[in-house]
């Protein structure tokens, strides 16, 4: 096990939250966790196929960033996209139905786990190849600036959040897009979910400068390092970055130090990561930690939290029923969606 980086300490009191805000964040994280647990169950029961990458352990990042954004802002994900989609507001049943390959899925059963899309929720995807979502996110951010400046649309102040992993920061598209985002001052957040591993490639074996947030500085862009297991810390960093972006002050790189609690995908036996490392990070479970915080601050009672968990469990269970009962895509529509129908 490599030397652990010291997680930056975040003083929660500095940005204390209101009760309803706290419960909203908690609910979103619980949804992410329960949904993924259900996916594992369904995968092993042969209900979903292909490469399924779960998000357990990283919930504070999705919730912390996306819930700091507006519903008309844009979210761009990777193949580990279920929970980003949920935080962005795509109903759990439409994500589950997609994983079951059903017509009612958010990508109408054509995409699958790694290709979740929802134009209605400004979810740009679901991108199965490393790094290829970053330029697409850049395009959405460029579009906001273009509408505002070239089309004189003052209401075009949407911000784009682009998520990707530590391994992806070694890909050219990362550097190319950081350059263009800074060059053109685009309203975008580059959110690195540094979970220390790219499948079986340990981060420090893959990169010459493991502190990813430092890479922002050469582009003249703020780079911040955040405890990615602390939803309050992530939320505070995201709020600052969103505010800057919305005000036309340009991009921010946020490196969230986090960990995945499961293998790379459900097909991964997860034999490389040491037991010690896993245990150390499991002890920082973002859900348990936030639960403790809410209780400590008297923002919620045990009963409040249980009520949320019960509600979400019911929602996730219903998503499975919905997915199971939904129709398969019509074979006569095999060729539909190749081209726009105008």
């Amino acid at each position, binding site marked *: 096990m490599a030397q652990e980086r010291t997680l930056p300490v975040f003083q929660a009191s500095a940005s204390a939250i209101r009760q309803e805000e706290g419960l909203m964040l908690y609910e979103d994280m619980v949804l992410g966790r329960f949904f993924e647990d259900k996916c594992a169950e369904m995968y092993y029961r042969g209900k979903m196929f292909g490469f399924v990458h779960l998000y357990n352990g990283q919930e504070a990042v999705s919730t912390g960033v996306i819930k700091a954004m507006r519903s008309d802002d844009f979210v761009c994900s990777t193949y580990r996209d279920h929970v980003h989609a949920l935080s962005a507001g795509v109903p759990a049943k439409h994500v589950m139905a997609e994983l079951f390959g059903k017509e009612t899925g*958010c990508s109408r059963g*054509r995409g699958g786990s790694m290709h979740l899309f929802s134009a209605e929720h400004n979810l740009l995807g679901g991108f199965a190849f490393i790094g*290829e979502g970053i330029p697409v996110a850049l*395009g959405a951010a460029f579009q906001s600036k*273009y509408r505002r400046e070239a089309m004189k649309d003052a209401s075009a102040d949407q911000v784009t959040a682009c998520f990707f992993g530590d391994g992806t920061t070694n890909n050219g598209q990362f550097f*190319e897009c950081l350059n263009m985002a800074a060059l053109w001052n685009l309203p975008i957040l580059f959110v690195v979910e540094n979970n220390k591993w790219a499948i079986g490639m340990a981060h420090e074996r893959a990169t010459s400068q493991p502190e990813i947030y430092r890479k922002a500085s050469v582009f003249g862009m703020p780079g911040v390092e955040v405890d990615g297991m602390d939803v309050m810390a992530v939320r505070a960093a995201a709020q600052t970055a969103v505010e800057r972006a919305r005000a036309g002050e340009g991009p921010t790189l946020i490196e969230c130090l986090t960990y995945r609690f499961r293998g790379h995908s459900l097909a991964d036996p997860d034999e490389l990561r040491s037991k010690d490392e896993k245990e150390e990070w499991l002890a920082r479970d973002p859900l348990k930690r936030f639960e403790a915080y809410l209780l400590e601050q008297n923002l919620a009672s045990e009963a409040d939290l249980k009520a949320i968990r019960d509600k979400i469990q019911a929602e996730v269970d219903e998503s499975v029923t919905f997915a199971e009962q939904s129709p398969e895509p019509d074979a006569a529509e095999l060729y539909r969606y190749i081209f726009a129908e*105008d």
Partner: protein
Amino acid sequence: MAETLLFNALREAIDEEMGRDSTVFVLGEDVGHYGGSYKVTKDLYKKYGDLRVLDTPIAENSFTGMAVGAAMTGLRPIIEGMNMGFLLLAFNQIANNAGMLRYTSGGNYKIPMVIRGPGGVGRQLGAEHSQRLEAYFQAVPGLKIVACSTPYNAKGLLKSAIRDNNPVLFFEHVLLYNLKEDLPDHEYLVPLDKAEVVRRGKDVTILTYSRMRHHVTQAVKGLEKKGLDPEVIDLISLKPLDFETIGASIRKTHRVIVVEECMRTGGIGAEIIASINDRFFDELDAPVLRLSSQDIPTPYNGRLESLTIVQPRQIEEAVEKMVGLKV
């Protein structure tokens, strides 16, 4: 009517479309202040500003992906590939995201974008700058592929491509930018999916596109003198192919020669022959013949280069042989 050079016809198309639709913008290397490597976007930045005629860093894969993202969110980008060959670096964004994303998203997004620029074998530009990417890209679902060949069709096709709600790969040819033609003063569009019957005839159908259209036209002059009457079709749309026009011609001539500038293996002609065999086999009096570039990296040496691509003389001979004048 105004006599117009092909590169200016393209420029007019872009200018007119940018004028009528503020979501249309151009991006690429040196498209702005420099005016484009073949002057297709000359001075447009003065009229539309730096954001609508966006000079990008040399980052093909990323600026192509950025255009995809802009198209998904409602803009209409026109990418200029400084040379189409450079778009090999953008293969991922063109294939995965421009081509397939509409489908994988189950129709959530459409991607109205044009990727245009100079392709083909020029004059001793060397192998890397002499590529014919149409053959590489034809297998990607979701892309339309178009090749222009005259100032008239260049302008009308580009306008249609910009208005199309799908990604269009739009091939120009390095050696055709200075072709001249009188263009109508009124606005016109040329449909993307229709082949152009360049010359009506009855003896043989010659299917061609881009610069090879002009080699064929030259060959036809010689053939006419020998009393032959070939039909010449400029495919225009390389994907999807216009089998209506192709089929109507085959039913008349029963003989087909494909003349292409891409390489023989896995080329456009290979696909055409397979499709003709699928659809019109019973109409054929002879196997379809293809005249293609050699399967080699285009050599720099001028003599070797001219041996690499199809010459008018070879087209003449092939037609004569096929219609039985020569055995």
